[in-house]
């Protein structure tokens, strides 16, 4: 007999997968957009309600399917489901008449892929869902049909296909080495495989395309801004994390020390974190700034991945930190992206409230105390603190993280600055506003009741940082504000000249 989790997981994946069938009939097509927020609900229930540990065997699927959930997957699933839900609500209000049916179809397919890959444990279905998400995501990217969108789509597609192929080759090699079709068997096999470095290179590069690794990131600042706002939110919030998840489940963490790879990843992470910020502050389009911010944030996560690779002993701890950070970043970034599409209402108080709600998730990203960001940043600091780590570059991690924090806030400020010039004054469609508010709420409030567990960190209801931690969080922010103010001043002076 099937247990409720099995039913739920099947529902979670199949509901969005079959949702495009509504497009076949005219009545269905009209009703399609109202269904969008409902699609991720089974997944949400699964992530919140079911205890990790269940598994569902699907022996007929591909080369033998196995879907299951552990702590890591649960957080990713949660992030995905929540973000898609709020973005779905938002989309109901956001969507115009332009090719609405097509957008809904690709929305459903992308969602199915994104949800499926988080629960898939066998190589076949994992890769299938990954590919589904990638290719259906193309439909979201080029939706607007403008020249920029088409160009971005082309770059996205080329990079994605290259990535897919790298993943295919990597998975093939890994699975042959493991003689198994299960992801869970891969890390150990990769660690001892004769072609270890090749496999790791392929997987890092393959998933790195999705995760916006430097030099593989070109598509990201192009694609995220041109996509419709709800799509940008899920692209930047949830789908980018799929690459991260791919790393976490395939690379040989905790099996063996890979100092070379660890160093490489740390360098890559540092370049991403700082470099993206430098590029990002030069952008004029709000969403492009956010896209660079995503790269920068992913860079920080890559730092942790690198550390986990280099030091097998710390890997389990870092895993939960990475998951927490991903959750935090996904929710906050989703909210920020959604805010790019809101309009300013009339009335000074209301305007101030809107600005506040736009700014808060951004500040949370930068690590404002009492936000999820502060928690994540501290957890990261804890995880990467010098003492327990044992490899060459460990000493550079702390300054890098600080620099990252500065960069983050600079980007957020830049975003608010550019947004200020763009926001229109009119009423928000109710569903759009509801979606955005929900995203802010989730990011700021609901986060505390989510089932994350990180060793050494206090959980909900309210987490209070210790004073020394407070200072550690705040001083990079102050530097950033100072820098921003300075820039503004210089800009004014230059303009007056």
């Amino acid at each position: 007999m099937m247990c409720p989790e099995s039913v739920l997981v099947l529902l979670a994946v199949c509901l969005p997968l079959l949702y495009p069938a509504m497009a076949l009939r005219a009545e269905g097509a009209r009703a399609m957009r109202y269904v969008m927020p409902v699609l991720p609900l089974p997944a949400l229930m699964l992530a919140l309600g079911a205890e990790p540990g269940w598994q569902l065997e699907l022996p007929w699927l591909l080369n033998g399917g196995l879907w299951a959930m552990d702590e890591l997957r649960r957080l990713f699933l949660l992030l995905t489901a929540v973000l898609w839900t709020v973005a779905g609500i938002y989309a109901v209000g956001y969507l115009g008449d332009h090719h609405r049916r097509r957008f809904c179809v690709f929305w459903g397919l992308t969602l199915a892929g994104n949800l499926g890959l988080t629960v898939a444990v066998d190589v076949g279905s994992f890769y299938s869902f990954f590919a589904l998400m990638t290719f259906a995501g193309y439909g979201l990217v080029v939706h607007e049909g403008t020249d920029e969108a088409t160009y971005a789509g082309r770059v996205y597609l080329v990079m994605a296909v290259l990535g897919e192929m790298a993943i295919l080759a990597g998975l093939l090699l890994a699975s042959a080495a493991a003689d198994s079709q299960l992801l869970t068997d891969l890390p150990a096999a990769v660690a001892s495989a004769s072609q270890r470095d090749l496999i790791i290179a392929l997987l890092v590069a393959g998933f790195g395309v999705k995760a916006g690794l430097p030099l593989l990131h070109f598509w990201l600042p192009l694609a995220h801004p041109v996509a419709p706002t709800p799509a940008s939110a899920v692209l930047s919030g949830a789908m980018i994390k799929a690459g991260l998840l791919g790393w976490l489940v395939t690379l040989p963490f905790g099996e063996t020390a890979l100092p070379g790879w660890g160093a490489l990843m740390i360098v890559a992470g540092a370049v991403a974190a700082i470099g993206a910020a430098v590029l990002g502050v030069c952008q004029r389009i709000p969403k492009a700034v956010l896209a660079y911010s995503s790269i920068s944030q992913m860079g920080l996560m890559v730092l942790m991945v690198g550390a986990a690779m280099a030091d097998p002993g710390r890997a389990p701890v870092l895993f939960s930190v990475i998951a927490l950070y991903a959750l935090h970043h996904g929710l906050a970034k989703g909210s920020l992206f959604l805010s790019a599409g809101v309009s300013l209402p009339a009335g000074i108080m209301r305007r101030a409230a809107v600005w506040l709600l736009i700014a808060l998730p951004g500040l949370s990203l930068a690590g404002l105390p009492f936000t999820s960001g502060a928690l994540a940043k501290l957890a990261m600091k804890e995880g990467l603190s010098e003492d327990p780590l044992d490899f060459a570059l460990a000493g550079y991690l702390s300054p890098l993280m600080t620099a990252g924090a500065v960069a983050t806030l600079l980007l957020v400020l830049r975003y608010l600055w550019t947004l200020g010039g763009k926001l229109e004054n009119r009423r928000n469609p109710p569903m759009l506003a509801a979606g955005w508010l929900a995203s802010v709420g989730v990011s700021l409030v609901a986060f505390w009741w989510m089932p994350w567990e990180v060793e050494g960190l206090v959980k909900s209801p309210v987490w209070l940082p210790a004073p020394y931690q407070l200072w550690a969080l705040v001083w990079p922010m102050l530097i950033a504000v100072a820098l921003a103010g300075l820039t503004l001043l210089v800009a004014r002076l230059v303009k007056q000249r």
Partner: protein
Amino acid sequence: MTLNAWLPVFALMTSLVAALVIFALPEKGYRLRTAVNLGAALVKLGLVVVMVWGVFRGVDYGVSFTMVPGVAFALKADALSMMFATLSAVLWLLTTVYAVGYLEDSPNRSRFFGFFSLCVASTMGIALAGNLFTFFLFYEMLTLSTYPLVVHRGTEKALKAGRTYLIYTLTGGAVLLLAIAWLHGVEGDLPFREGGHFIDADADIHLSLILIFILLVAGLGVKAAVFPLHGWLPQAMVAPAPVSALLHAVAVVKAGAFGIVRVVYNIYGIEASSLLGVLEPLAWLAAFTMLYGSVRALSQVALKRLLAFSTVSQVSYIILGVCLFGPVGAAGGLVHLLHQGIMKITLFFCAGNYAETLGIHRIDDMDGAGRRMPGTSLAFTIGAFGMIGVPPLAGFITKWTLGSGALAANMDWVIAVLVLSSLLNAAYFLPIVHRLWFREPNGSWPRERRWGRLETNAWLFWPPLLTAVMTVVVGVLASLPFSPLSWAELIVLREYSP
């Protein structure tokens, strides 16, 4: 003789008799002809299903008699032949349906359907042939019965293509005949046997065996469109869409590939072939063809020519799989025999639909066709993604199995070829898919026709959708018993432990 012995004969005769009946029917007898066509296709499918079940349980179907002194005419159903027979039976049914719609009001329908049935009878014969001699018999019959289909339009271009086709295939046939006769001189009549015949061949005939192998592959390679023998295939695209579909998916190119499979597995034996050292060069050739076909496809502007070059590339997957020493790779090659058939026929059906409904022949004209013909375009998209090897479609199963097989056989370079080939596939298929769905139509269609509610004629509408669904299903359900993959594994199991 028992009924079992006669079942293959019946399967063969259904389409043969259908062909003769159709030739005899007057041009105007539309309903009767359609009924005969579909009836024969259904009967044949039924017979094949019965035999599949029988072969699965280990029943021996076979009939044999001496035809020319020293050589037998032998029909036999083993797991491999059933794979090919099933493919041809299923796709024949669909293609018949499609062709009925496609040729709705064109002249010479009796001739067309007559040769069409003959063509399928030959394919069936190729599938069920019990020795090389019988195989050759049907192989040549296939050449002849497809020629009238290729030149069906009767235009100068069609006739020119037909000529090229004949020059290639008949020359290939002659080379094949030489090889078979030589082999016969060396070893006598060789029935197809699991494990092959030459595992302990004397060292002094090794050279002859290698030469014969080269000749055999050269002869079969023409139909399989292996580089540099592929020149006829893109030209033969002037044929009507159902013909192209059948040629590419089932009949001609597959006959060549199937022949190579037979030679390697059931004449030489995989181990003997490996010992003779002929597999590795063949694998290289196949790999090169895979890439070459894709590179050529990149620069095509006509949809069907693009698909033709894609076939050149795809059929070599089968050959490559055969050359991988080891059960997994072999299964990958064999399963592609079916997968490629299903996917390619989908694409050709769609190409035909675009041509018939909107008059689209060139890729540039396809902008926005997805809105006008969503069903067809969906099928096309699935087919194209399948070709690229996107999971969980049929093509992915092939690629995955082939890749695993290559690794098991320590031929790691194959992975690179697979990846490169997929990239190239993506490079020429994805832009088309983009055009279909994301471009605005540029004005009016070249030549639009309308049929009632559906986007196109119902006879044309359903076959590609069905094959597209099959593309998904054989991929997603690859691990079910009787799925192509499972069947290929069964064949390989019997081959490696005869």
